[in-house]
């Protein structure tokens, strides 16, 4: 994984609540045995017509949102299936962070494991960002992982929670498996104790 320290980006607004992983990536696209190319399937049922042509009014299809790396979602984003294909598809499309009112547990963990930063914000900050994007769709936010801050287009700085371990992994670009494997002795001792 690449280290993730700072980011300045435009924002794609998709402010619905309870966007579940079946919407993020429908189950029929889970038959892959690798992770590549899932970005094209991101939000497939909202994004494409039955004949496969893109729906021009869906946010991800609008030219002005191409290249944006931050998604603005509603509450309980990523509920439903534990499929990691959901963060893979978001990352493959180009997203690096998601700002939302709240996230589903499994999704939040899966996102962080793939270098995708979930930023939960309160109703006030959420409304301010949504309004700023309405006024100027090209407005940008900036994210500072070390400081755990999100700077809104108007300059307002919002702090967000991030557990120290995930923060360490993001900043260093390291992953959890390496950390876990370092506990070999403790794992073996646990097994011996309980055998």
């Amino acid at each position, binding site marked *: 994984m690449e280290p993730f320290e700072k980011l300045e980006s435009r924002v794609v607004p998709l402010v*619905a*609540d*309870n966007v*579940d992983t*079946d*919407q993020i990536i*429908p*189950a*029929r696209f*889970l*038959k*892959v*045995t*690798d*992770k590549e190319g899932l970005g094209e399937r991101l939000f497939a*049922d909202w994004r494409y017509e*039955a004949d496969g042509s893109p729906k021009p009014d869906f946010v991800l299809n609008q030219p002005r949102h191409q290249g944006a790396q931050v998604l603005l979602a*509603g*509450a*309980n984003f990523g*509920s*439903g*299936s*534990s*499929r*990691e294909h959901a*963060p893979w598809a978001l990352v493959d499309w180009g997203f690096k962070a998601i700002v939302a009112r*709240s996230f*589903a*547990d*499994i999704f939040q*963990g*899966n996102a962080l*494991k*793939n270098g995708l930063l979930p930023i939960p914000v309160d109703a006030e900050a959420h409304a301010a960002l949504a309004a700023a994007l309405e006024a100027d769709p090209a407005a940008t936010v900036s994210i500072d992982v070390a400081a755990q801050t999100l700077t809104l287009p108007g300059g307002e700085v919002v702090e967000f929670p991030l*557990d*120290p*371990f995930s923060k360490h992994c993001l900043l260093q670009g390291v*992953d*959890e*498996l390496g*950390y*876990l*494997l370092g*506990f*070999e002795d*403790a*794992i073996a*001792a*646990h*097994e011996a104790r*309980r055998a």
Partner: protein
Amino acid sequence: MGTSHESAGKTLFEKIWESHVVAREPERPAVLYVDLHLIHEVTSPQAFAGLEKRGLKVRRPDRTVATMDHSTPTLRRADGSLPIVDEQSAAQLEKLRANCEAFGIELFALGDPRNGIVHVVGPEQGLTQPGMTIVCGDSHTSTHGAFGALAFGIGTSQVEHVLASQCLLQRRPKTFRVTLDGQLAAGVTAKDLVLALIARIGTGGATGHVLEYAGSAIRDLDMEGRMTVCNMSIEAGAKAGLIAPDEKTFAWLEGRPRAPKGEAWAAAVERWRQLPSDEGAVFDRELAIDASALEPRLTWGTNPGMGVGIGEAVPDPSSVGDAQEKAALEKALRYMELAPGKPLLGQKIDVVFIGSCTNSRMSDLRDAARIFEGRKVPAGMRALVVPGSHEVKKQAEAEGLDRIFREAGAEWREPGCSMCIAMNGDQLSPGQYAVSTSNRNFEGRQGKGGRTFLASPPTAAAAAVTGRITDPRTLLG
């Protein structure tokens, strides 16, 4: 561990958690040992690929068991063959077979008598046992909590972690006890109980918590009903669902292929008796629900929390003040093409699906058969009955349930996830309405454009034989 809870006794969750923490560093998640790792074809290929890339082995193949279920075919042809619908599914199944062979993992492959939906076969084989930690790359792993095991779904990266280290990095969740007292009315099932709970607390209502279900209504459920309740925990956002093991649990497990035998059995039961939450144990949250007041339930919308009692009307967004909630209701009603403020009774149905890890076990099939018996599925209506495993299929056939379903005009299929996730060719067509005993009514979950009403097996069967949403209690005589 040293918290204020100590003097007050421990919860079931705390006992399991504490006995599985291998290590814990300050400011880091705990390293939690996994007793049983279940895998299937959809969420494992990238995990095995990751192991190969790093040159790692599976640490405990003896604690890992695989099955094929998500994309397996359920429709046997007249010539006895069971063709896989598409090349991608076939490739994914073959990948699982090859990975299991290469890494020495036991596989309940297609055609194996032990094959079936992962959350049906785990308990059935006696792999699932009280006090264990169990994970699987599937969110309905919470099912196994019915046995007093801490069981939860994980993503593919974590599947890789467990394969390599038999451990997971986990933050300690909070505890939430839901006490359901009172006797369920006739025609009201475990499914109705859990749908009522989700409607009450919402799809994010238990986020960050492990639910423990307690109370007389839970004690009175059989093990299969308890599995149904725990299965849906995730639909309330919970990390896991737990039910304390009791005599019913032990009786259900005894003699199963992987359950301990002889002296080991007696010792295990002795251990398991220590698991239930201590008197006075403190939960982070508590909720009580009167189970005797419940009626059969249905979801009307596009998440499992959007549900009503079968006699109630669908909500009317115009009576809702909160703008976001109003928008969500409107969006769901639009997708479902339902009139606000109208009852669901009488709503025309195109397809009925009885199956999935929520409701595909013997008691579910018996409940459904009671309503199918002597009745007919109307012309133009399709009803699928998909047993959860080969074991269930065999037993149902021994009891003659298959004959009841077939004579009523329902399709009796081979086991698998089938229309719960619509990956194997069993799916709704756009615009169709289904009553389904599965666990998710998300947009397109059962096929693009399909519309799902989640319900219990009796309610689904009642829809199957009348072609409409019908109160099953009117058909129970």
